[in-house]
């Protein structure tokens, strides 16, 4: 039984990791082919760094994901606070259902529906190119919001309702109470939301595909257009670097997690699992 399950695990992991292995291998190819490995070289890494379009796209993506992550974290955190305090159950359910829509809907539908609005407003205003950085930002904030809200809300629920009251009692105005007491309390949720928003935004292709104009190319859009032309291993080099960066981040965040607060209760463990699952759980289900 044990060997059988080991074998099974191995097979699944081979399946999940072979494309990544191929990608890393080919990125060091000395030849131009993406199918034949001719020898080890760093040629494509050099070429990649020489390609100004790629670097531009990387810069664009960073600007976009940072700004959309920050914007959605601010709006989303406030929204979570508001939703948490809502007394009208009907309103609360309505807001939550609408919030969940971008998570439940296929990305392509979210993408085209936003595009239709931009097109409509754009033609109404007589703009020549209506898709720009701003439309991308709006789209990204829109699909990030539910993830931020869903990572902040549980933290608010965990908070003893007397804690903000204690702050008021000791002389805080409601605003001071929010910044001095409530925000520090929900901070872990806010940070998770921020990171999630950043990664979702960084990685998004489908929605960006419909909401970005030619004036602002993100990395994924750039890769898409490169693949459409001819594929050279430089894309693999780029992806390998991104992969390495992500891996590094994961290791750091895991290490800091386990060293920062050594003895967290078990409850937090399950909370973490849920969060990790949320991290990439793009399609529905999670909201339940």
């Amino acid at each position, binding site marked *: 039984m044990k060997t059988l399950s080991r074998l099974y695990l191995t097979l699944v992991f081979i399946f999940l990791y*072979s*494309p990544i292995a*191929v990608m890393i291998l080919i990125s060091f190819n000395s030849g131009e082919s993406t199918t034949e490995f001719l020898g080890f070289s760093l040629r494509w890494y050099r070429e990649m760094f020489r390609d100004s379009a790629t670097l531009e796209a990387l810069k664009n993506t960073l600007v976009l994901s940072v700004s959309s992550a920050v914007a959605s974290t601010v709006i989303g955190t406030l929204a979570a606070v508001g939703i948490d305090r809502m007394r009208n159950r009907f309103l609360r359910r309505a807001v939550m259902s609408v919030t969940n829509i971008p998570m439940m809907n*296929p*990305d392509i539908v979210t993408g085209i529906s936003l595009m239709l609005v931009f097109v409509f407003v754009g033609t109404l205003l007589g703009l020549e190119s209506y898709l720009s950085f701003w439309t991308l930002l709006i789209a990204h904030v*829109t699909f990030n919001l539910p993830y931020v809200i869903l990572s902040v809300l549980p933290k608010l629920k965990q908070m003893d309702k007397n804690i903000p009251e204690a702050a008021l009692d000791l002389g805080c105005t409601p605003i001071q109470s929010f910044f001095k007491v409530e925000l520090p309390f929900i901070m872990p949720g806010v940070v998770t939301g921020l990171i999630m928003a950043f990664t979702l935004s960084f990685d998004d292709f489908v929605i960006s595909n419909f909401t970005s104009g030619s004036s602002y190319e993100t990395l994924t859009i750039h890769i898409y257009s490169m693949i459409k032309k001819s594929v050279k291993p430089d894309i693999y080099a780029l992806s390998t670097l991104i992969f390495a960066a992500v891996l590094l981040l994961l290791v750091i965040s895991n290490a800091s997690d386990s060293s920062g607060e050594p003895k967290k209760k078990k409850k937090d463990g399950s909370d973490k699992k849920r969060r*990790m699952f949320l991290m990439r759980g793009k399609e529905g289900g999670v909201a339940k």
Partner: protein
Amino acid sequence: MKRSFMQRAAAAPHIVWSVLFIIAPLIFVVYYSFTDLDGAFTTENIGRLFTSNYVLIFVNSLCLALISTVVCLVIAYPLAYIFSRMKEKWQRVMVLLIMIPLWMNFLITTYSWMTILEDTGIINSLFKAIGLDPVHMINTPGAVVVGMVFCYLPYMILPIYTVMSGIDPKLLEAASDLGCSGWHVMTRVVMPMSLSGVISGITMVFVPSISTFYISQKLGGGTFQLIGDTIESYFVGTAINYHFGAALSLVLMILILLSMAVMNHYSDSEDEGGRRIK
């Protein structure tokens, strides 16, 4: 607790945002579906969907999505069970290992699959090296399923694992104690209890696989079209027609809503069954 104005207004930006960029866009989808290029009301777009050409596209997409979902479930379920019986430390490692591929952009990994599955690709090179005949894999529905399963398998594993790891081992012991055989423990206890994970796994795999548009282009080689590809071609392709594209999206959305409703209904009634046993 008295709520200050600030707390009351905190959700306001989000609500305004949702109305502008979630609700309004959906209204636009409906609006475009039922208008022609001049903005006049028409049912022509919807009508055109029922021509054999598009019905075939829908059927193809539905079949491939269903196959991928079932394959994912079959692979994921035993895997999640194996994970959930491991030591806590290993469980964490396994979850991390399952999540890492998700961090790779699917454009790249799909392209990697091309490299692997091509006629002169890695698998066929291996076959050649050991003296086997090459097998044609790329540009077949099978290749598309491989691509989809690769992309969405973790979404099936994680929710099922999350539910299974929450099952108290004492419960399984209690079941065996009450005379359940290993098989019965599985079918009577583990399976009903993990159903909610299965349901969310299915939705998380089915929704993106029925609407995908890139995987089929690359791995299917354009030999057949899926809904996603068709929608995309009407919005950013050469034959731009927002109205017809919107109609396609509307039907896709309704299709997904319907299947989710069916799933939810199914899971609800199962839930009640569970309660009865208790």
